[in-house]
């Protein structure tokens, strides 16, 4: 690629990021610090800390994030070690199933979990049937321990992110590094603590940070658990007030500051990049054949975790087919009417069409930007290419809700980007929001592709007379096509199921994307939850196909998609 084109891409990317990443964050911050008289004020921020309700929300969000991260680590690390080290029955299949929990936004799974853990839910019915519970006094699991419910939901949804990172780090580790420790008299257990864990820490840290920030700012799950005492939900509730209310902006600002602080602190402690266990492996890793019963124990562990993780989704599926599910372990009778009704409901068809439209356009934008960024950062030596790469990955670390508020702030009346609103149609805004948020997936998978394809292939084409751009088009792009397809698929499907931008930016029913339609269906009376489930199942199948497809195409590199 010619240098001028690289610089052009660099400039376009920088401009795009300035407008649609840095500026929205700035706009949100500005709204939080600007008083009615347009002067700088700390009044709103200090109010956040003085108000007991907001303080409690922040504290609860923090607790949820800590326990979700610890819980995900506790599940994901042993799974990753088992997968990389040992041979056991069903290993390959179970590894691909680990991604299953990611195929639904957890807030859809929450509908299912409510059907199971509610007072008249499946678990209580099972316990009553077994004679372990008094039918007159069923336990209200969710009512008493809503926070626990939220944490469990999020752990079961997010542990695959850590799993993918840890498994990738483990299999990239040069086995000779552990063998050297064994050779010097170190037993397996202390080898893990003294050599393996420190070396895979950057990978684990990368996954852990995403899980932490994700759960700290998660809005969908607490919303469906009717748990208002976390910051994200408080923010969502307050936008129903007048748009001039500065408190949501102040809350979002505080969230951003805390997320960044957590990230930097943990990076300081765990993310020491000099300790990456890279280097080319000099000996193949031999997977250890376990004794039969231990092998099956591994299988059971894997299968058990996966089963638990898909339980909410199972609930969603059952709910979508059930005529009546109340006070029984599984529904009384099954029906297809919800699928039929869902198609007839005024919200569903338009929301599907909207989501397809928004996501397809967003994918296109993300692909064009992503390929450019990846190419410049992998193949050229221009100044600032690493900055470009880092910029493209930043949206992973910034909470979605912060971005959503930024977009809201920068398109208010009188702001320079007000025209993006197109009247009341959030099309442009949502496309940009989705594209920015999913850009990291595209950049990482494209970069992985460019790294695998040797530049000499392109040079050979140039040597035979092709212009640099032509060589890129005819040689490299076809070779990295699988990676681009995978990245595009992921971007598309995660855009379809994006929660925070959709909830906040789409205000009118005619423009609702799928996620907001599901949410408003859940809230409606009658068969609303069943309709929502039917819509959720549709989304679930959709995501399952794309993620499994991307997993097959990208292989182990999938882990790199969830890394800051």
């Amino acid at each position, binding site marked *: 690629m010619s240098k001028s084109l690289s610089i052009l891409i660099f400039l376009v990317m920088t401009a795009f990021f300035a407008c649609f990443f840095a500026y929205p964050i700035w706009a949100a911050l500005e709204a939080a610090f600007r008083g009615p008289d347009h002067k700088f004020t700390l009044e709103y921020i200090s109010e956040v800390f003085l108000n007991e309700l907001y303080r409690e929300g922040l504290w609860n969000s923090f607790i949820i994030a800590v326990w979700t991260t610890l819980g995900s680590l506790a599940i994901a690390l042993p799974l990753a070690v088992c997968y990389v080290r040992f041979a056991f029955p069903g290993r390959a299949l179970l590894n691909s199933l680990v991604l299953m929990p990611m195929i639904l936004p957890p807030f859809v799974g929450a509908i299912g979990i409510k059907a199971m853990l509610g007072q008249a839910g499946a678990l209580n019915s099972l316990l009553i049937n077994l004679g372990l519970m008094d039918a007159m006094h069923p336990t209200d699991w969710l009512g008493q321990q809503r926070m626990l419910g939220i944490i469990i939901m999020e752990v079961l949804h997010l542990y695959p992110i850590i799993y993918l990172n840890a498994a990738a780090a483990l299999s990239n580790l*040069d086995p*000779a*590094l552990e*063998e*050297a*420790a*064994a*050779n*010097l*008299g*170190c*037993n*397996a257990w*202390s*080898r893990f603590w*003294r*050599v393996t864990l*420190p*070396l895979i*820490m950057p990978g684990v840290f990368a996954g852990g940070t995403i899980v932490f920030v994700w759960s700290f700012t998660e809005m969908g799950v607490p919303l469906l658990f009717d748990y208002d005492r976390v910051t994200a939900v408080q923010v969502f509730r307050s936008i129903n007030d007048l748009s001039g209310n500065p408190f949501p902006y102040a809350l979002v600002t505080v969230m951003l500051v805390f997320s960044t602080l957590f990230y930097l602190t943990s990076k300081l402690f765990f993310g*020491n990049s*000099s*300790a*990456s*266990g*890279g*280097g*080319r*492996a*000099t*000996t193949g890793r*031999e997977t250890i054949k376990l004794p039969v019963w231990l092998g099956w124990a591994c299988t059971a562990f894997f299968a058990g975790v996966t089963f638990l993780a898909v339980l909410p989704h199972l609930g969603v599926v059952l709910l979508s087919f059930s005529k009546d599910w109340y006070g029984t372990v599984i529904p009384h009778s099954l029906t297809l009417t919800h699928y039929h009704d869902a198609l007839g409901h005024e919200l569903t068809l338009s929301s599907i069409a909207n989501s397809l439209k928004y996501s397809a356009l967003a994918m296109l934008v993300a692909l064009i930007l992503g390929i450019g960024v990846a190419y410049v950062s992998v193949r050229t030596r221009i100044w600032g290419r690493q900055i470009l790469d880092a910029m493209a990955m930043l949206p992973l670390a910034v909470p979605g809700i912060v971005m959503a508020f930024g977009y809201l702030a920068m398109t208010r009346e009188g702001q320079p980007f007000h025209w993006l609103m197109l009247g009341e149609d959030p099309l442009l805004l949502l496309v940009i929001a989705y594209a920015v948020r999913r850009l990291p997936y595209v950049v990482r998978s494209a970069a992985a592709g460019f790294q695998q394809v040797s530049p000499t292939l392109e040079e050979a084409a140039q040597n035979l007379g092709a212009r640099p751009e032509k060589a890129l088009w005819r040689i490299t792009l076809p070779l990295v096509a699988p990676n681009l397809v995978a990245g595009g698929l992921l971007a598309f499907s995660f855009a379809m199921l994006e929660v925070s931008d959709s909830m906040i930016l789409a205000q009118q029913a005619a423009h609702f994307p799928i996620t907001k339609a599901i949410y408003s269906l859940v809230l409606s009376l009658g068969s609303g939850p069943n309709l929502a489930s039917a819509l959720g199942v549709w989304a679930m199948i959709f995501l399952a196909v794309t993620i499994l497809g991307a997993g097959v195409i990208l292989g182990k590199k999938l882990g790199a998609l969830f890394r800051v």
Partner: protein
Amino acid sequence: MVTITIQELTKRFGGSVVLSSVNLQIEAGELFFLLGPSGCGKTTLLRHIAGFYTPDEGKIWFDDEDVTRLPAHKRGTGMMFQSYALWPHLNVAQNVAFGLEERKRPRKEIEHRVAEALDQVKLDGLGSRKIQQLSGGQQQRVALARALVIRPKCLLLDEPLSNLDAKLRLEMRTEIRHICKQHGLTAIYVTHDRDEALSMADRMAIMEVGKLVQVGTPTEVYRNPATRMVAEFIGETNFVEGRTLRESSWAGFFDVETPFGMLRGRTNDSSWQPAPGQPVVLSIRPEAMTFANLTDSPNRFPGHIVDTTYLGPTVQYLLQVQNGPLMKVCEINPQEIRPPSQEETRAMAGMNDVVILRK
């Protein structure tokens, strides 16, 4: 310092046999080389001794202790890995101290011995450096210090010099041999570099597709290669095919009929008497051939020179033998350089330098 005995060792990976019935005894204090082309199983054998692989059949003994099933961390060997396998999250001194910490030595002793080991490999004062700040040669020394500091029962070296530049490689050869001898270490050294093996080894084993082909001292292996493959692997050589005629008038020498005349040579194994008419192959090293006149040898190679390469200390010719093969001739300290030409010439080789191998 231990004697290592390997009995009937067999290992399969999937369907393919990578080691087949290997028998070997390595004496205490010996610097022993495993040599062979890539894929011959030499590294696999070393990793069995270190305990990273468990054999499918056979046994490994350290003196009279059966260590076949003993896990790697209980064997007390010190290994140098090809990639050095230095831990990037620990600094130089921490890397070297690791094995002593696992052995629960008192802090004072660890500090003392680490300093001593770094001193021995000439890295004194670099203990607090990070691994990434070291050059390839320095990293190699850290790896050596880390393996030596535990005073291992035996030192295992897996192509330790393959990542260094030529000059450093030469220096380290002498140094590694010196350190092994100084400590009286039993050491097993895996390499595919024949110069390394010839210059350093007490004894060596040549391997091919999972089998030991020959075990012996460098001179034995170079002068009496067991097979055509060994002859070729351990040094440059010329092969001439022929048939045994008879035992010659000189005791221990045989006459062999070749397409360009009779050659007289000795067998690679004094207990072997090739029968008349038996097809054999002759190995003649380039440096054993000369254009000078050898009065006590009947071995003549008439032909003309097709290529000349001047290398300073030596000059190499390619000689097209009449009705015979192309042969390499190497003259040391050449006074006169012969250009390629159609002119008839002839080379000669002493009877002792024509080695008869089984075909």
